[in-house]
């Protein structure tokens, strides 16, 4: 299965009625053979985008290309994509095997061949032996796998997932996301994956497209998004972030000196002019110190402390506002009410371009 295809959106709009715009002039490319996540809060347009790739919605404007071919006006059946639905959408009146073979059967493949391919697909998701069951006799996780097998059996060049894990509980979710990632790597297929869960997106994606209010907020690899969010929205949505007021002085055409209270830090200026700026600071990039520590950059008082299995979560009141800190539960563990100092370095801190004034 090496027919993985690239997916391209060219200035695609989708309007529902006169008023509501679900997708606003979006352009992006999903390289062939990668797993790309559409991430965003509910109502941001990510599902509509996915459905336009599937052919379940048609763009109001712009072009959708799959493998270089313009499919904007093609019905789903002619697009060479398969989709796994949030509710799985298994046919309740067919057995598991009939479900999986469905795509082949309606493509008029010989029955024997279809059955064999179906069995192989079931085997690949670890459901051999469940052929004769009805979907209602399977657990949520198993139903999910049947849905995946059913989509895979057609050997599509693009595989679409619409929040496939949202009906599973937290434990199973982790397991299934690993399985989906493994499968994608094994088959080398292009996957577009919709989710509102940033942890899921970070864990499995080659590329993440963050959407907000019908437009793309930022796209990039998980680490790029995490290390240099383009806006306060992305900083807050992908991982947690403290937003701390700072002032900026350009040093050269790349870096700037950032002052937070009496502390100084050199960071890429990301095109920001001199003057007040906003800094996104990852909670786990902050080290908690005793107040007297020479490395102290900010001082404050612990207002809340909670244990989180292996790590502690602190809320620290500082002159720059409340700062949220995640630190290992071993070592220095102050209690609520204790005075502490904070220190942080270049890593885990990023200036937020365009966040002052434009932040919603």
């Amino acid at each position, binding site marked *: 299965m090496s027919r993985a295809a690239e997916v391209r959106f060219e200035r695609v709009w989708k309007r529902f009625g006169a008023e509501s715009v679900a997708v606003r002039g979006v352009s992006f490319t999903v390289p062939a053979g990668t797993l790309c996540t559409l991430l965003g*809060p*509910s109502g941001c347009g990510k599902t509509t985008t996915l459905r336009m790739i599937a052919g379940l919605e048609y763009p109001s404007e712009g072009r959708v290309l799959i493998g270089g071919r313009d499919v904007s006006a093609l019905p789903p059946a002619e697009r060479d994509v398969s989709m796994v639905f949030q509710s799985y959408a298994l046919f309740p009146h067919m057995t598991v095997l009939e479900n999986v073979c469905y795509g082949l059967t309606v493509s008029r493949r010989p029955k024997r061949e279809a059955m064999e391919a179906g069995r192989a697909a079931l085997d690949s998701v670890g459901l051999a032996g469940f052929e004769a069951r009805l979907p209602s006799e399977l657990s949520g996780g198993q139903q999910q796998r049947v849905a995946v097998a059913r989509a895979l059996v057609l050997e599509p060049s693009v595989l679409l997932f619409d929040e496939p894990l949202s009906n599973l*509980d*937290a*434990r*199973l979710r982790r397991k299934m996301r*690993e399985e989906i*990632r*493994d499968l994608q*790597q094994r088959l080398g297929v292009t996957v577009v994956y919709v989710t*509102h*869960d*940033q*942890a899921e997106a*970070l*864990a*499995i994606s080659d590329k993440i497209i963050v959407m907000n209010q019908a437009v793309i907020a930022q796209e990039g690899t*998980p*680490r790029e998004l*995490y*290390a240099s969010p383009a806006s306060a929205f992305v900083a*807050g*949505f*992908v*991982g*947690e972030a403290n937003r701390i007021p700072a002032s900026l002085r350009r040093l050269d055409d790349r870096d700037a000196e950032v002052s937070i209270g009496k502390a100084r830090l050199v960071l890429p200026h990301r095109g920001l002019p001199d003057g007040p700026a906003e800094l996104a600071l*990852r*909670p*786990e990039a902050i080290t908690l110190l005793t107040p007297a520590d020479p490395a102290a950059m900010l001082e404050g008082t612990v207002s*809340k402390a*909670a*244990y*989180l*299995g*292996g790590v502690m*979560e602190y*809320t620290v009141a500082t002159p720059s506002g409340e700062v949220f800190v*995640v630190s*290992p*539960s071993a070592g220095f563990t102050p209690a609520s009410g204790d005075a502490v100092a904070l220190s942080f370095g*270049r*890593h*885990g801190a990023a200036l937020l371009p365009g966040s002052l004034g434009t932040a919603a």
Partner: protein
Amino acid sequence: MSELLAREPAGIRVEGVDLSYGATRVLKDVNLEIRPGEFFAFLGPSGCGKTTLLRLIAGFNAAQRGRVLVGGKDVSALPPWKRDVGMVFQSYALWPHMTVRRNVAFGLEERRLPRAEIATRVEAALRLVGLDGMGDRRPAQLSGGQQQRVALARTVAVRPQVLLLDEPLSNLDARLRVQVRRELRDLQQSLRLTTVFVTHDQEEANTVCDRIAVMNEGAVQQVGTPMELYDHPANLFVAGFLGTANIVPGTVLREGGAAAFEVAGGTRIPLPPGLAVPEGARLMFRPQDVSLLPPGSDPAGRRLIEGEVAHREFLGASMRYGVRVGGAEVLVDVPHTGGEGHLQVGGRAALALDATRVKLLAG
């Protein structure tokens, strides 16, 4: 807010409860003691009986055997409306035909309180959850998070002896969930209200609760503080449910005073002295108890095990590697320090296990 302080926090005792639906045993000999003023969680996978147990305390289910005491009083035979137990439902269960204020006033009216007191307590409750000024809205005009707060205000307004929360965060999106759970904790602390929280999300339970009862298949597996459960899980289920655990089969060998654990392939891991050795034990350690080194030497002189990186997952604050050693896969968390220098999938790596952190657990 003083109007809404719990009169006197009440404890909850569940004694020897068995509950079946037909042939299915949903709760099996459950015994629990929830202390007054405590924030307590029932944590477990779906179908483990946690919601059934909560509804038993509320009075919606009846047990075949055993009893439930609230504030020292046996309430097993009382219907919900005579129990003085407040409950927040997963769906919030706000009455769509009443305004927010009428929703909150409902329980107070049922208690036949004077009008003036109802009015002050409703306002206090709405202020408490930050919804003052929204009293005249209808539930449909509120966002999910606001609806959740109305449900909470409605429940605390009657000053129940105990507060029951049935997966109250599951209908909120991931971002809001983190915020609301902190607010819940603050609220519980300020009202000093005995609170029971049902969830399947260990992170939720860890962050808000004083103590947790981990449940599986209708039975309580272990009760303890989040740290106790994480550091000293009683069995494999608890170890796996709270946080991520590496679980390795093998045999315990004793040589003189020292014990070691031999895994398939002959690798021996020294066990810390004085570790209890249950029957058929397996070795358990957390992904962060292992460090990942380039293959070759170890500066600290620890025993190294070599393997191949099978996959990796970016978790934001850390990178999780799956390293294939022999037939097994060991998960290793490495703090993410920015930049590159990460091991690639397919590369070789050496594992250094902190032997003082390992546990032996019965299956």
